[in-house]
């Protein structure tokens, strides 16, 4: 194949000695020749890599590697979940049942693998624990194209629907069918710096609405000196925090989608809520500031008391406990102030579910394991003890663990407080477009904030026309994406999957 013309033209094949000279006897001095490549090719880099490869290879071979021989596989995306599940999985595997192998996988990778498994022919796990943004990706087509097994009948027949907190099922309910067991409830309360507020003699129990909150805590805002920005604000809320914006919109009865999944970004309730939120963030007397979550900067601002109040879903309690431990005893909780007297005092932030892949060849065993894992009281208590997460299984709510005083939150019976709000958690429709909608709403809020500030318009009434225009634009933008989905169009009957 190789045309080494010069060699062929040379006629007689000759041998070569160690110096590259050719011997006349026609034989190759193979031993010397073999040593040549090594001598020339073994540069320090190659030698180092070779040594590293051999030593590490031997080390790996000697190290004990767990054998994965399970008949069922489960993927989860969160290490705290994984750690909590290990005992339950071990317990299951010790019984005479289909053995389960559990794997911890990054969320983005799980999204890719899950969709690959559902839409293509690549392998996927039997059970998948998916966060809302991941699971909803699968709800983009007709019912029979959803990659998760429809659990509605199983849940009904086994009487589990009444055991599970109803609103917690909504993000996994598509076209009236339920595709996952909820992992959590994630009700939201308002955390406040009790050390500062109570020292000022303010009783937070008297706060019922957002207007009450700003009226009562407004005097505690501090400015170092005239011309400087405030050192202390009432509320941690900013237009860049899309989760917070969504939480408040849902609490007000709004949100980007109607309960049936119809896009409704530009509805009146959203316009009013956005106008109020923007009014909190701008103007000489603004009451909101930016304290980013999950960042050292934000943690330092929390320690400094830069904001007095924070939106606090149950899982966020655990974040604070780990990231700002020195605030122990200085923070307390109340239900979120309502938008109007008598209004809803909570909202929802985040959520995960456990679903069974349709591609699983052992769906019955997977269902049995899913129940063993998610319905277990032990797991519910572990979730709360190690993650501050309230289980959606109502029969476990009577456990005394939830009534224990929590030292971090000033000895409040935090578990019970969250449980009392669980029924009022807003419904969220299962839609693959909620991320796009959330982003569009956030952009609309940012634009509204910028425009209103540049025009010196600071009251909700003044801001409302700007908010309406921007939300209408956001609605059109997301609708364009939604309408591109042939399955969700009105003429979808004509389209075969």
């Amino acid at each position, binding site marked *: 194949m190789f045309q080494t013309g010069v060699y062929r033209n040379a006629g007689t094949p000759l041998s070569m000695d160690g110096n590259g000279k050719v011997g006349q006897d026609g034989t190759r001095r193979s031993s010397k020749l073999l040593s040549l490549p090594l001598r020339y090719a073994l540069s*320090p880099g190659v030698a180092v890599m070779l040594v590293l490869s051999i030593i590490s290879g031997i080390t790996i071979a000697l190290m004990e590697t*767990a054998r994965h021989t399970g008949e069922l596989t489960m993927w989860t995306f969160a290490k705290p979940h994984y750690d909590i599940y290990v005992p339950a999985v071990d317990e299951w595997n010790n019984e005479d049942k289909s053995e389960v192998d559990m794997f911890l996988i990054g969320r983005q990778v799980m999204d890719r693998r899950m969709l690959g498994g559902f839409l293509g022919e690549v392998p996927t796990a039997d059970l998948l624990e998916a966060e809302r943004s991941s699971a909803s990706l699968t709800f983009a087509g007709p019912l029979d194209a959803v990659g998760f097994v429809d659990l509605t009948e199983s849940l009904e027949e086994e009487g589990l629907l009444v055991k599970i907190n109803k609103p917690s099922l909504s993000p996994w309910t598509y076209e009236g069918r339920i595709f996952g067991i909820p992992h959590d409830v994630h009700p939201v309360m308002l955390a406040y710096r009790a050390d500062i507020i109570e020292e000022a003699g303010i009783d937070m129990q008297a706060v019922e609405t957002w207007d009450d909150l700003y009226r009562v805590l407004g005097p505690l805002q501090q400015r170092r000196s005239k011309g400087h920005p405030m050192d202390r604000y009432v509320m941690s809320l900013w237009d860049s925090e899309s989760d917070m914006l969504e939480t408040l919109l849902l609490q007000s009865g709004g949100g980007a989608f109607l309960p049936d999944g119809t896009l409704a970004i530009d509805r009146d309730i959203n316009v009013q809520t956005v106008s109020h939120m923007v009014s909190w963030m701008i103007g000489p007397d603004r009451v909101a500031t930016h304290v980013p979550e999950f960042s050292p900067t934000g943690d330092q601002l929390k320690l400094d008391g830069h904001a007095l109040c924070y939106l606090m879903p149950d899982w966020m309690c655990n974040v604070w406990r780990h990231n700002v431990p020195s605030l122990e005893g200085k923070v307390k909780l109340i239900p979120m102030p309502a938008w109007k007297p008598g209004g809803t005092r909570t909202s929802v932030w985040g959520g995960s579910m456990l679903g069974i892949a349709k591609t699983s060849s052992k769906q019955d065993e997977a269902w049995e394991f899913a129940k063993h894992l998610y319905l277990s009281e032990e797991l519910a208590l572990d979730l709360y003890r190690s993650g501050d997460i309230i289980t959606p299984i109502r029969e476990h709510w009577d456990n005394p663990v939830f009534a224990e005083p929590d030292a971090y939150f000033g000895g409040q019976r935090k578990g019970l407080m969250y449980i009392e709000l669980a029924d009022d958690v807003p419904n969220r429709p299962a839609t693959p477009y909620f991320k796009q909608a959330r982003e569009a709403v956030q952009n609309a809020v940012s634009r509204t904030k910028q425009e209103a500030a540049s025009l010196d318009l600071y009251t909700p009434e003044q801001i409302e026309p700007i908010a309406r225009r921007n939300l209408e634009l956001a609605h059109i933008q997301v609708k364009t994406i939604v309408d591109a989905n042939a399955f969700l169009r009105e003429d979808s009957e004509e389209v075969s999957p």
Partner: protein
Amino acid sequence: MNGKRPSISVPWVLVHLLLIAVSIVVIVPLLYLVISAFKTEQGFLEHTFLPLGEGALGIDWSQLTTKQLGRLFSSEIGIGRALVNSIFLSATTAMLATFICALAGYASAALDFKGKRAFEWLVLAALIIPPPLLIAPSYQWLHTLGLLDSYTGLILPAVAPAFGVFLFRQATLQSVPKSILEAARIDGLGEFGIFLVIALPMLRPMVGAFLIITFLAMWNNFIGPQIVLQSAEKQPLSVVIYQTQTAYYSDYGLLMAGTLVSILPVAALFLFLQRDFIAGLSSGAVKG
């Protein structure tokens, strides 16, 4: 130089001031990383660099700890195994990829064979394909071959990158004179021998550079191991360090300590191989 002191002039001072400023920009984040790896959670949040206090040199030494490093190597995180995995994956891939790319690059530059043009076009075409596009088909292939959740499944797709083949082709064209190859052929050396004895030593600078490039690429590979590997004990450092950050909170001290552990071997390797990285061997090779 000959022992002469450099004459200090205004441009000399300006250049050195600029270099010092650039060095500070490079060193400060590294210093921050090293110090943060030894700080307590509270110390991390309260002090940018060393925790100031009433101890010796005005530093609160009680806020410095090796606890994070201890946790990393405990069974809780198990970074030791991840370190070995990363070294194995990176070193093995670097060696194989360098050897195969050098072979292919040499063949492309120095030999005439049927389909050579097609081969070169294929390499060029492969260069313009964004790697994320290959994730799904690669995953399917690895599944078909039964290589999922194996080191081989991660190493195999990385041993013949088009970039490397093209790099060695260009290096061969530039550094290996055809007259030397012809001389070796006249002397009767086989093609593989010519590659090993003549070409490869002359490509040593590229070999050194490519070894480090591929070692680093595999060392920093984050998505690949998560796609191909499933077992926790097979994951490399990049993934294990990421997994110390949970869905709910971040332990910054642990993250910094993990990052420190992950960059130390690579930094040491680079320092050790930097001469190899920059050495030139081809000069004077055709002296007659």
